[in-house]
């Protein structure tokens, strides 16, 4: 195990976790290195959100959403897929590995999958090491906007 666990920003669509146990775990029992951002739909996630997480020092960004036909708002996740997938590859172009941005599209029978996915993602990030290249935001202690 690494001394400092990898920092993960978890963007979660509030409709994608069908099991209440999973949702309760995400809401109350997330490890401290995972920062949860709950959104009404993955379509709400602006690339700026991801950029802010990356600049704020996130070693990885995970985006949870519903499968294509299952979006609560019909097609919010379709917009998210096109845009955020391209944004991930664009970040790779300027120095933030594509593997650090991961999408997990959850389905009704995927009970308990979120924990496995997060664990697997953390293992990937540990192999990649911490991401320094774009973590440029000044910490709150020095007058910056993130902590």
């Amino acid at each position, binding site marked *: 195990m690494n001394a400092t666990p990898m920092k993960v920003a978890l963007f979660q669509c509030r409709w994608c976790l069908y099991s209440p146990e999973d949702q309760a775990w995400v809401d109350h029992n997330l490890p401290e290195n995972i920062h949860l951002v709950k959104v009404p739909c993955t379509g709400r996630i602006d690339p700026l959100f991801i950029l802010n997480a990356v600049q704020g020092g996130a070693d990885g960004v995970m985006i949870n959403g519903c499968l294509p036909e299952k979006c609560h708002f019909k097609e919010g996740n379709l*917009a998210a*897929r096109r845009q955020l997938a391209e944004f991930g590859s*664009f970040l790779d172009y300027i120095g933030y590995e594509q593997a650090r941005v991961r999408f997990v599209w959850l389905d009704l029978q995927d009970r308990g999958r979120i924990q496995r996915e997060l664990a697997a993602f953390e293992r990937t990030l540990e192999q990649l090491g911490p991401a320094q290249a774009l973590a440029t935001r000044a910490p709150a202690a020095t007058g910056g906007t993130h902590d």
Partner: protein
Amino acid sequence: MTELETKIRAEAERLLSEHLVDVVVAFRKEDAPLHPQPAFFTQVDELQDLVYNGLCANNLANYLTRHPQETRIGMVVRGCENRSVNALVVEKQHTRENLVLIGIPCEGILDWRHIVALTGENVLSVEENGESVCVHTRENTFAFSRVELLHPSCQRCLHPNPISADVLLGELKPEGDPELMRLRIEALENLTLEERNAWFRHEAERCIRCYACREACPMCYCTECFVDHTEPRWSESGVTPAGMQAWHIVRAFHQTGRCTSCGACERACPMDIQMTYLTDKLNLDMIDAYQFEVGMDTTTQPPFATLTLDDKNRFITRGK
């Protein structure tokens, strides 16, 4: 006055005198010989100031969104401007029926910074004769070939000819080679992650946040830009590494499937920052993934504005 200018003036005069348009957007002669300025002609007798040469560096489509939709606009367009106009029509920023496009096959824009670097500050006039360019300074006269003075974006230009102009003046030019742009982006993509990041930081962190690139860009027409929001503050507003990088990343990303690679942003930049390597990469991705090229017609929506269930998607992984 060149033959082409005569033709443009005659056409502009016809449009204005027959009341086919309310305003003609073109370039005007200025005292600074390297900087013809965009101008709005509403009277026939103003047209004596109209010029057109290789130093006309702005993208005139930029001024489309500054007029109400009902204004009938006559506009001098080159290949890139024509595509920008098309992209703006797709985004419903103007109605195509209210536009008269005076198309000019483009020989490429001369980089005035490059001219000044080669000849010194005291340029009196620039003469273009086809493939050769003659620069007269206070002390001396220099002869160059046109190719060596071209702006980098114009060297890589794909479509020098206007594709949907109402009037076409001058002779059509051969289409550009799409490999030139691709080779440049692939060369960058083949660098290591650290080298790519170093390149990006080297470019982005010279930024002084003047937003000249935004003002010069025809596709940047939001009334309130994300960097101007104060509540919530989306990105750091100062000249800090985080703020400068966020500006360059998000400005480019907002151009995905909308940028025509005209290079107006780079020509406007007072710090000589390269930006097209970002937007070109996104453009290439859109071509490869969705076979979408910006501004080739006035109906196809850009990829991010269209949603389909059957997208090829490398991200969907079902439960293990």
